[in-house]
């Protein structure tokens, strides 16, 4: 009897996250569908103007989508070399003692709150960019890319390092025993073997960057206009939701439009995570680890 009760309690706990997920998805759909009766979905996604408070309002989120894409792409350019490079160093070149110190430090970077990153972006990166590029404002897609890239680096590094670690020692030994040097072994055996694990790391890094809100709200500049260069202010989807939710009357079109943005964002990160999961499963099978 008592045992049954415990089992029930833990089962409820275990299913709680599933219930939350389903609840969130349900609310996202329910609250975003009304907007599509006013604006058709193609116009919503590909509309070039986001003027939610004008009359008549315009609900085109292309500027927001492109802003997210630019910023995420820029962040990838920063976090992939940094993250994968440091993973390679940690795994292949650093001695055990150095590694024992460095890896936790890299992971510690992930525990810095995003508002702190945003703060640094505002007070240090912003004036710096403004000066170098002689810009009217330093709050730009470029700035957001840099800061997001640094933020995503620990994710990429940590997962990529795990992937390199999973490459069995026997592959390296076999390669060395054939007369390959360290560099050849790394490039031709270790990296291909860890390849899909490293891809997983990159996808999860992207997913981290695209979903980040506070930082982009603080440093991306906030202009809901289609960006033409990295040096313009932009308003990514997350920033639009965070900045506008407070001023959109509950039940208004603007309110539903913001939910629709959240739904799209959710679907994008959901797809990223599924791809990452498939790729990493394939990776484990390839290395003969369990499926």
């Amino acid at each position, binding site marked *: 009897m008592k045992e049954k009760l415990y089992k029930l309690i833990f089962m409820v706990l275990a299913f709680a996250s599933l219930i939350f997920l389903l609840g969130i998805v349900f609310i996202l759909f329910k609250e975003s569908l009304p907007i599509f009766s006013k604006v058709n979905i193609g116009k919503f996604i590909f509309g070039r103007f986001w003027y939610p408070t004008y009359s008549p309002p315009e609900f085109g989120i292309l500027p927001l989508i492109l802003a997210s894409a630019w910023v995420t792409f820029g962040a990838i350019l920063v976090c992939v070399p940094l993250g994968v490079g440091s993973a390679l160093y940690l795994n292949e070149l650093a001695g*055990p003692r150095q590694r024992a110190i460095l890896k936790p430090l890299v992971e510690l970077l992930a525990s810095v709150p995003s508002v702190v990153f945003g703060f640094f972006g505002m007070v240090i990166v912003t004036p710096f960019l403004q000066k170098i590029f002689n810009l009217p404002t330093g709050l730009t897609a470029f700035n957001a890319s840099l800061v997001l890239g640094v933020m995503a680096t620990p994710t990429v590094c940590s997962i990529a390092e795990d992937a390199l670690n999973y490459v069995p020692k026997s*592959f390296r030994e076999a390669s*060395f025993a*054939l007369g390959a040097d360290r560099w050849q072994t790394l490039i031709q055996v270790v990296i291909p073997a860890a390849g899909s694990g490293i891809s997983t790391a990159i996808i999860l890094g992207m997913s981290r960057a695209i979903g980040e809100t506070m930082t982009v709200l603080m440093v991306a500049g906030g202009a809901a206009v289609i960006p033409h260069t990295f040096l313009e202010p932009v308003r990514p989807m997350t920033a639009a939701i965070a900045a506008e939710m407070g001023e959109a009357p509950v039940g208004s079109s603007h309110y539903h439009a913001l939910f629709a943005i959240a739904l799209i964002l959710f679907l994008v990160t959901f797809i990223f995570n599924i791809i990452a999961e498939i790729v990493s499963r394939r990776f484990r099978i390839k290395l003969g680890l369990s499926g």
Partner: protein
Amino acid sequence: MDKKIKMRAEGVNFFYGRTQALKNVDILIHANQVTALIGPSGCGKSTFIRLFNRMNELVPDTSLSGNIYLDDLEINSAQIDPVEIRKRVGMVFQKPNPFPKSIFDNISYGLRVNGVRDANSIEERVEASLKKAAIWDEVKNRLNDSALKLSGGQQQRLCIARCLAVDTEVILFDEPCASLDPISTAKIEELILELKKDYTIVIVTHNMQQAARVSDYTGFFLLGELIEFGKTQDIFTAPQDKRTEAYITGRFG
């Protein structure tokens, strides 16, 4: 004993940290013969064989004294690049360890890292070494399949082929049949007997019957010492040392 000596070890001591794994080992490895190293687990035989291609350098915090020669070359001297030694002294490991690449690429990898670029000659040598390793007929129609799809015994023969492709002179086998079934084991043993025509072979095994079947010389290791070394026939029929006798008659192990 007029046979040529291919490798020899003189006064070899080896340490993992402060633990001495090998104590003053001397041995002669005869060219085109099979030398078996036997002994109970932890006796140092695997550590010893890995000194012949400088694989122990990959293990941190180890140290070595004494000399090891390949022909007349001291392989540990400072001017020698371990990469050069490993090209001449190949190794087959306890667990088959093909790369997660195609069958073809598993063999061509060694060629490419050793500077062979010409596609035709790579193809020829891949085929030749697969034939030598007696696995060609089983894989010739699926050279682009992943090597990991092969059975354990096939994988091990592929690993042998991989060694042969790079023109190795000595092949070190570190318990090559430890994870294989009896039929695959028989195939590997047959192959070893065939290969000794062209190569010098050292095999570590904990299977005494295997040592008796395939080897010409046998060395018995115990607690890091080479207790007895001689012709396999003599070791198994008339061991000089009591400990060797006790081991081969199965009194411990």
